[in-house]
């Protein structure tokens, strides 16, 4: 079998957006600096030049207007893909997201569809500090009505983006900015990766690790190491937080009885808390060891590289420690 071509995560995003714009005249992009600049992270590079300013629209720095423009135009028949540059900025327009986009279908009794994709980026590691490096995806899970996508590979980011565009609901699509340069195999053309279907990135029978976005790859590094030591780690990438593939997670857990969640969000109210709660409710009789979370500590993102890279961002070492701890219960 010939190897598939490789693209970076960023290139996969650009390609997906390119194809989406090409396929459907109702699709348009709107966001800050997505035009001439090509996106702060270059994830819309060249698209304005190709499709013109009407289909790739630079926006004023007015995030509520950006989301509202997305919601309103979606309701009247367009397929907007809007961008909020950093997830840190979503609190500025949170009402449009959690009160309007998320609730309109329900509170109006299902009268209208809102096929809106909201792309944003998350993650620390570039010295962005408290306002440009958060990973707050878990907070949005508490608000019913938004689908939440957290792609973990170049392959997935493209396929999930198509699924997001096909979806007739508001979708919060979160790109981990520290993965933009990550390379991986990406099929040509159009394909979809379904929502609510987790991927098992590494099989193992001893411990289940549910890891999100960039953390998947850290977990995989450790899983490969551990394999040599004879410890089998099953690494699960949930791909979407809403809908969440509880079945795959529970199925794996019932096999291993041990669970570690690795997620860059702050510790309290972390996605891992939700996973732990699902297990404690639905698979309690299988629990063999403490369910551990490897997360950022519960503080804002600090600037200094020593604080950020050596302490704040969850790393392989933290994963190893957690593994050793749960293995004490073997």
């Amino acid at each position: 079998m010939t190897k598939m071509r490789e693209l970076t995560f960023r290139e996969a995003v650009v390609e997906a957006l390119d194809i989406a714009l090409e396929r459907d005249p109702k699709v348009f992009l709107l966001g800050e600096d997505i035009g001439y600049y090509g996106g702060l992270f270059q994830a819309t590079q060249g698209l304005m030049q190709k499709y013109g300013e009407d289909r790739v629209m630079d926006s004023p720095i007015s995030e509520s207007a950006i989301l509202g423009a997305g919601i309103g135009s979606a309701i009247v028949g367009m397929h907007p893909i809007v961008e909020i540059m950093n997830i840190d900025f979503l609190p500025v327009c949170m009402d449009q997201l959690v009160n309007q986009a998320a609730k309109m279908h329900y509170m109006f009794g299902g009268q209208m569809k809102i096929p809106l994709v909201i792309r944003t980026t998350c993650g620390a590691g570039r010295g962005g500090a408290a306002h440009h490096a958060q990973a707050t995806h878990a907070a949005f899970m508490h608000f019913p009505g938004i689908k939440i996508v957290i792609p973990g590979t170049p392959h997935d980011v493209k396929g999930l983006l198509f699924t997001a565009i096909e979806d007739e609901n508001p979708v919060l699509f979160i790109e981990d900015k520290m993965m933009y340069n990550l390379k991986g195999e990406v099929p040509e053309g159009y394909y979809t990766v379904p929502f609510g279907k987790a991927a098992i990135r590494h099989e193992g029978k001893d411990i289940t690790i549910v890891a999100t976005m960039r953390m998947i790859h850290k977990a995989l590094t450790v899983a490969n190491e551990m394999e040599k030591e004879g410890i089998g780690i099953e690494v699960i990438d949930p791909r979407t937080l809403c809908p969440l593939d509880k079945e795959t997670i529970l199925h794996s857990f019932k096999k291993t009885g041990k669970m570690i969640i690795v997620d860059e969000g702050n510790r309290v109210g972390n996605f891992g808390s939700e996973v732990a709660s699902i297990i404690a409710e639905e698979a309690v009789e299988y629990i063999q060891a403490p369910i551990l979370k490897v997360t950022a500590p519960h503080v804002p993102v600090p600037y200094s590289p020593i604080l950020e890279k050596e302490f704040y961002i969850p790393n392989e070492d933290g994963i190893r420690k957690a593994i050793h701890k749960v293995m004490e219960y073997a």
Partner: protein
Amino acid sequence: MKYPKSMLLEMLKKMMEIRYFEEKVVDQYARGAVPGLAHLYIGEEAVAVGACMNLTDEDYITSTHRGHGHCIAKGGDLKPMMAELFGKRTGYCKGKGGSMHIAAFDKGIIGAMGIVGSGGPIAVGAALGIKKQNLDRVVICFFGDGASNEGATHEAMNFASLHKVPVIFVCENNLYGISVAQHRHQAIKDIAIRAAGYAMPGVVVDGMDVLAVYEAVKEAVKRAKSGKGPTLIECKTYRFRGHHEGDPNLGLRYRTKDEIEEWKKRCPILCFKEKLIKEKIAKKKEIDQIEEDVKRRVEEAFVYAMQSPFPKPEQALEDLFA
């Protein structure tokens, strides 16, 4: 008058529909029969009716917590509206929305938003969608004097004017945001002045005069449809009742009885009725006939609502996603 009689009578009828619909709500609320909050439009009918008379079912509006008037003026059916207020399954939103969240998408009513100011960006979005699809439509965004101080309103206006999308911002300046008088929530007198900050026209009209509102919005619709962008129209008006039913003494904690009485003299329905009679456009009998007809239909809507079933409890789980 230069207007066709049928249109004038239609305006009168719509205003009466709003008035009698809401008087039913007053009555039912007082009996404890309305299960949620109700913010009434009584006194402000000329604004919604004058504005929406320029629209067709194809055009859109966004509405507010004080939305019954907008909804009726835009063609909303009294029966599913009333049913919605009573939380019935036959309501416009299957009983999920209630008074503050009525939408009637087939009539172009995108919906009422309970968060003050949040309709602005969405209205602008709908207008953007119209523009992108080259449709011959407009959007009216209703909002209050209080809402004019929300950040979202500012962003919406800037965006709309920049992209010259076909939206009309109709500000219902009823002088209060709940209990806070306009001079206690902003240093300006005319909200329309803010239009200059977005390079769009801003006009002030008498919001108690349905024809004045009609004319101003007509101009704005023309402008919007010709690609020239948005207009801000400030309608000076007044709510005759409290902020919501239950606001004690119709709001006498923060305004005077005299003020209320002064404004009541300018009742948009009474004045318009008198005008039509005085200018011999319609006879009193004809108008009484319309009035009776409206009352009857409101009563029918009420009976419809009463006889309609509630949703089943588990239906709370439906409609989360499309």
